[in-house]
């Protein structure tokens, strides 16, 4: 049942919602409005002259090869990060669910990466992977693999996928552990007595029962990979070498802040906003439905 608290008068409720309202307006509505406003204008590099250009910024993006490439790159990045992070989270969760001894320690350790700030995570990986002095770079060098993410675009792209996925594994792990725990033990036992074992039992019994969790995580991971990896990528490669690691959010920053194309950058932001609204709507729709039934 829904809980409702009733207040007398109007002042108290107004005062109570004010801080949240202020934050929302200051950090969400206002920037969003600014982005909309800028996206239909063109401003010169010095910010001295602004003119209304209608949808020109958007049309320009639609025709831009660079933008299309960034879009495809982001798509590949999101899919790769989502698949990797979810698969790893699921495998670890399945093992954690089976572990009898040291279960609590195991779980706690696996949750740690999530608590690391994205930029710090990048710094840690820089220590390990720095082209000249990195620990892993040296190991790979001995194996005859020339690793240099600063000049090799493919390697750089692979690297940000791995780090982004690594950071998200904990999150998926937590949700999958919870998901596995909500699968009734007697259902699994009944399947066992019916003759199901091992992977077959997982595929026909556990995996289908994890569907709501999986669906939720797909959306969350996608949103994470698309929007939440800016700090991580920027600290590591800043979108380079070239545009090898330039996902859409990185491009917004580069075009707007570095190349000072405010209108184009704002138009990109508006597109990103539309995407995130769409994804959130999908998630609400489906997870909302499940919660009711």
């Amino acid at each position, binding site marked *: 049942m829904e809980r409702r608290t009733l207040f007398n008068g109007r002042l108290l409720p107004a005062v109570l919602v004010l801080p949240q309202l202020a934050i929302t307006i200051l950090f969400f509505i206002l920037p969003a409005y600014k982005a909309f406003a800028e996206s239909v204008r063109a401003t010169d590099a010095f910010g001295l002259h602004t003119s209304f250009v209608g949808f020109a910024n958007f049309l320009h993006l639609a025709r831009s090869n660079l933008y299309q490439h960034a879009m495809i790159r982001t798509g590949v990045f999101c899919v790769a990060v989502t698949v990797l992070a979810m698969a790893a989270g699921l495998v670890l969760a399945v093992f954690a669910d089976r572990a009898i001894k040291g279960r609590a320690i195991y779980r706690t350790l696996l949750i740690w990466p999530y608590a690391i700030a994205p930029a710090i995570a990048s710094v840690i990986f820089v220590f390990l992977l720095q082209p000249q002095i990195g620990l892993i770079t040296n190991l790979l060098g001995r194996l005859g693999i020339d690793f240099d993410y600063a000049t090799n675009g493919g390697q750089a792209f692979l690297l940000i996928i791995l780090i982004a996925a690594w950071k998200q594994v904990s999150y998926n792990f937590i949700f999958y552990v919870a998901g596995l725990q909500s699968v009734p033990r*007697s*259902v699994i036992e*009944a399947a066992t*007595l*019916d003759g*199901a*074992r091992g992977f077959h039992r997982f595929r026909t019994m556990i995996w289908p029962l994890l569907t709501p969790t999986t669906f939720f995580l797909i959306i969350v991971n996608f949103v994470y990979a698309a929007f939440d990896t800016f700090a991580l990528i920027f600290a590591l490669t800043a979108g380079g070498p070239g545009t090898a690691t330039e996902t859409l959010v990185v491009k917004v920053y580069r075009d707007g802040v570095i190349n000072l194309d405010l209108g184009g950058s704002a138009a990109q932001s508006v597109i990103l906003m539309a995407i995130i609204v769409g994804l959130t709507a999908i998630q609400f729709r489906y997870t909302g439905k499940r919660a009711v039934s």
Partner: protein
Amino acid sequence: MATLELQGLAKRFGKTTVLHGVDLALTDGEMLVIVGASGCGKSTLLRLVAGLEEPSAGRILLDGVDITGRDPARRDIAMVFQNYALYPHMSVFDNMAYGLKLKGMKRPEIARKIEEAADTLGLSALLGRKPRELSGGQRQRVAMGRAIVREPKLFLFDEPLSNLDAKLRVQVRADIRKLQKRLKVTSLYVTHDQIEAMTLADRLIVMHEGRAAQIGAPTAVFDKPADRYVASFIGEPAMNFCSATLIAGGTAARLDAGPTVDLPDGARAGADDTRITIGIRPQHALLSTGADAMPLTVELIEPLGSETLIHGRLADGSEFMLRVAGPAPAAETIKISLPAHYLHVFDAESGKRLEPLTPALSAPAMP
């Protein structure tokens, strides 16, 4: 169809011993009901047989073959769980088909078997539904159907009726019994409901704190409970117990409440003045006006319709319950008598039943 034998089956969880070595043999097609208070280890025993827990000691033989260490998936045993444990994402049909597919059965064969079972259980119209679209009673039947289509060697039931309302329970209880008799599948059935136990069982095993207190036919357990625990557990309302001492060479007892009762079926072992407990079921004690009647101070009267329960206290302060036909007499103190052939005699200390010494047994013991 199979025989099942348990030899010294024991289970410990860490330091606590839940089962202290249970020995049991089921003949082919037998329905054995395990009954006992909550926490006495009934489910644990069942789970050991199913292979869902590993025994700490002992052996399990199915059809004479030792299956103690065998993978539960390879035991050919079906279990009906208390919460039914239906596969929530599968239709009723798929719930029943799951085990058959795993056996490698062909599709048409599976469909035929399921239709047959659905027919028996009245599930034919529900085969396409998901478990969440079923009522409790329907779910229970699906769980039954899932067990019977597999034609396993052994059925295990863990309180399959406890989630049904009282009326449905009586009906499903009868259905289960009929079905089990027709299919002749050897079954172990756990319940804490003694009426369920009495009506379903070929034989009963009364468990108490991880031990089999008594194994026998329901009437045998009811008529000759092996100890005070069984006597108080089986039978509703529970048996009355009166402290007493043995007199007259074991052929009579003097109740602490006053009167002396004869033990006409034979003398009990033990010197005079041995402390014993006399038991009698509430429906067996009688209202009386005779000379040997003893007074009962009435404390509570519960009319049950055609019968009445009278709660009261005897002269020595012990509680006593009486079930009489018709209404209770309107008096604060009534007189009751204990018919001799309904008396149960237990050792006061060990609680074990004291049987009359037969002539053979009362002969002087060999040195």
